[in-house]
C-alpha cells in the first residue's frame, strides 16, 4: 500500500504516542533472553531482539482463555470486546508466517470467533530480520525470512531511518499526523532493496535438501529407527510445542465457584508430547511411546499440515531447538532422516 520513511530518532516518540492511545506489546529483555510483554514506554522496547521465549501468538491465542461463563442454565460466550486494539511491535517475519498459518486453521470450517475477535483487534507491526536470530533458526530454508503481505506496518532498518511499508488502513492510521514521516524518494526504494539483498547471504541454509521434499521425506521415514532414538532422549516436557509459533492444540477445562453451578469454561494450550494427549477413557493411548509422539510432532509440522492446509507447519524460528534440554531439533531431525534415506537408497542400488 505504500512506503514511508521514518527518522529513527522519531521512533521512541511514536511508540510513546501509541502507548498512550492503545495497548502496545513488544519484546523486552529478561535474564539474557527476550519476552513479549506490555510496553509502557518506548525505552522498554528492545526492537533489535534476537528471538523471544514465547512467540507473539500468545496475544491472539492466549495460554489460558475463557470461552464461556455460566450460571445455572445461562451460558454466555466470552468474546473479546474490541474497545482498544493491541499493537504487537517488532514481530519477526517467521512469526508473521506463523500467524497466517493460525489464521488459516482457525478460520477454516467452523470459524473460531474467540480467535477471530482477538485477531481482528490486533495490529501487527513487523520488522525485517537482518541477521539470523539464533544458531538454531532456519528461516531461510522454510522461506520465512521475509514477508510481503499480511502486516499492518512493516519496518526495515536503514541505519538512521526505518523504511515503513504500509500493509493496511489500520497500519496507515498509526502514522496519522506524524511529522517525522516522509514520502520515499526513488533513492529510498533502492536503499530498501539493497538492505534486503545484503541480508540474504548473512542467512544460511541449514537443511541438506529443499523444503519441498520434506513431506515425501517424512512419508518415507515413517518407520525409521530414528524415532526410537529421539524417544529415548525426549523428556516429554512439551517445551518444544509450547514455544512453537504454529502449535495450536488446546484442552478445555471447567471451573466453578463455591455455588458449584456458576463458573467458566476455559481453554488452555495443550501438547501432543504429553502422555495424556491421545489417551481415551479406559486408558488406551494412541501414541503411547515418546517415539510415536515425536514422530507425530515432526510429521504434523512437515507433512500433515501440508496435506491438510497446504502449508508447512514449521516456520524455522528455532525456538524449539533452543528450548529443548536434550537437543532434539528440527534441523538435525530432518537432516538425519534425509541422510538415512539416502544411505538406504544407496544400499538398495
Amino acid at each position, binding site marked *: 500500500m505504500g512506503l514511508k520513511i521514518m527518522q529513527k530518532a522519531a521512533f521512541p516518540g511514536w511508540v510513546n504516542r501509541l502507548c498512550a492511545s492503545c495497548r502496545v506489546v513488544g519484546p523486552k529483555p529478561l535474564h*539474557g*533472553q527476550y519476552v513479549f510483554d506490555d510496553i509502557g514506554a518506548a525505552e522498554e522496547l528492545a526492537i533489535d531482539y534476537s528471538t523471544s521465549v*514465547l512467540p507473539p501468538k500468545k496475544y491472539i491465542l492466549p495460554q489460558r482463555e475463557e470461552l464461556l461463563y455460566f450460571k445455572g442454565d445461562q451460558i454466555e460466550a466470552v468474546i473479546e470486546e474490541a474497545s482498544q486494539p493491541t499493537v504487537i511491535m517488532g514481530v519477526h517475519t517467521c512469526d508473521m508466517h506463523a500467524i497466517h498459518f493460525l489464521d488459516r486453521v482457525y478460520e477454516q470450517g467452523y470459524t473460531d470467533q474467540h480467535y477471530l475477535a482477538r485477531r481482528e483487534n490486533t495490529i501487527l507491526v513487523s520488522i525485517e530480520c537482518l541477521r539470523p536470530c539464533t544458531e538454531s533458526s532456519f528461516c531461510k530454508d522454510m522461506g520465512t525470512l521475509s514477508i510481503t503481505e499480511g502486516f499492518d506496518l512493516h519496518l526495515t532498518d536503514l541505519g538512521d531511518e526505518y523504511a515503513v511499508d504500509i500493509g493496511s488502513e489500520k497500519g496507515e492510521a498509526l502514522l496519522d499526523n506524524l511529522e517525522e514521516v516522509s514520502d520515499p524518494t526513488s533513492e529510498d526504494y533502492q536503499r530498501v532493496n539493497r538492505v534486503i539483498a545484503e541480508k540474504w547471504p548473512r542467512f544460511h541454509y541449514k537443511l541438506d535438501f529443499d523444503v519441498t521434499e520434506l513431506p515425501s521425506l517424512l512419508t518415507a521415514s515413517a518407520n525409521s529407527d530414528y524415532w526410537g532414538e529421539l524417544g529415548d532422549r525426549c523428556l516429554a516436557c512439551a517445551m518444544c510445542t509450547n514455544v512453537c509459533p504454529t502449535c495450536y492444540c488446546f484442552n478445555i477445562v471447567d471451573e466453578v465457584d463455591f455455588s458449584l453451578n456458576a463458573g467458566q469454561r476455559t481453554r*488452555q494450550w495443550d501438547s501432543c508430547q504429553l502422555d495424556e494427549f491421545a489417551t481415551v477413557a479406559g486408558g488406551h493411548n494412541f501414541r503411547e511411546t515418546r517415539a510415536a509422539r515425536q514422530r507425530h510432532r515432526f510429521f504434523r509440522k512437515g507433512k500433515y499440515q501440508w496435506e491438510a492446509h497446504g502449508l508447512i507447519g514449521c516456520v524455522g524460528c528455532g525456538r524449539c531447538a533452543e528450548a529443548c534440554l536434550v537437543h532434539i531439533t528440527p534441523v538435525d531431525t530432518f537432516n538425519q532422516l534425509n541422510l538415512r534415506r539416502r544411505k538406504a537408497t544407496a544400499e538398495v542400488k
Partner: protein
Amino acid sequence: MSKPKIAFFDFTSCEGCQLTVIDALQTNIELLDVVEIVQFREAMSEKGEDYQIAFVEGSCTRPSDETRLKKIREQAAMVVALGACAHLGGVNAIRNRQELDDVRQYVYGDKAEWFETYPARPISAVIPVEAAIPGCPIDRDEFVMVVKQLLQGRSPVIPDQPLCVECKLKGNVCVYLRGKTCLGPITLGGCDAICPTYGDGCEGCRGLISKPNIESLKNALEEHGLSFEEAQAKMTMFLNYQMMELEKETAGNGK
C-alpha cells in the same frame, strides 16, 4: 444436602500445609459456608469424630502412626494426602538412605533408643488414599480446587503433566539458560512453576510424573555441570522415597 464434615490431621511434618489451608481462607472465606470443619488441631479446640473427608498432613515415621492412620481410614469416606510429606514422604524421607541408628545417634547420642522411629513413608504406603494434593507446601488454589471437586462429587485429579508445561506457559526463561538446573521435566506440575518463576530450579516437591525419563534428565544435568553426587542430591531432596521405590523395582526386574 448437608455440608460435608471435614477434618485435618497431622503426622511428621512442618505443618506448613495446614497453615496454607488457613491462608487459603484469606481469599476464600466462603469455604467455611460450604464445609463443616470438625477437627483442625492447629486452629481449633473442638474435636469432632464424625467426618467424611480427612485431610492428612505428614509422613508415617513410626509404628504408632500406623494405628492412628488406620483409625482415620475407618472413619473417613475419603482420605486426602495433604502435601509432600503425606504424598511422598517429603524431606523426611531423605534419611531413608542413611542408616537409621546412625541418624538417631547423630541427633540424640546415647539417648537414641528413647525415640521410636523408622523410615519415613507416604501415608499411601499404610492406608489407601483417594487423592493427594501434592507440594511442599501445597498450593492454595489447588487446595480450593480439590475441595470444590470433592463437593461436586468428582474424584480430584491433578493433570499428569510435567512442570515445564506451566513454566513455559508463563513465559519464564528456563533456568537452565541461566546457568542453573531444574527437575521440571520430570516433576508433576500444578504449582504454577513457582520456583523457576522465582529464579530457582524445581526441587521436585510435587513428585514424579507417571512416566518420567529420569535417565535422559540425568544426562542433561551432567551436561549442565552437575556431578553424579550433585545430581543424586537433587533427585533425593523430595523424591527420595519415589526414587528408592523405582530402584527397588528395577532391581526386581533385573532378577
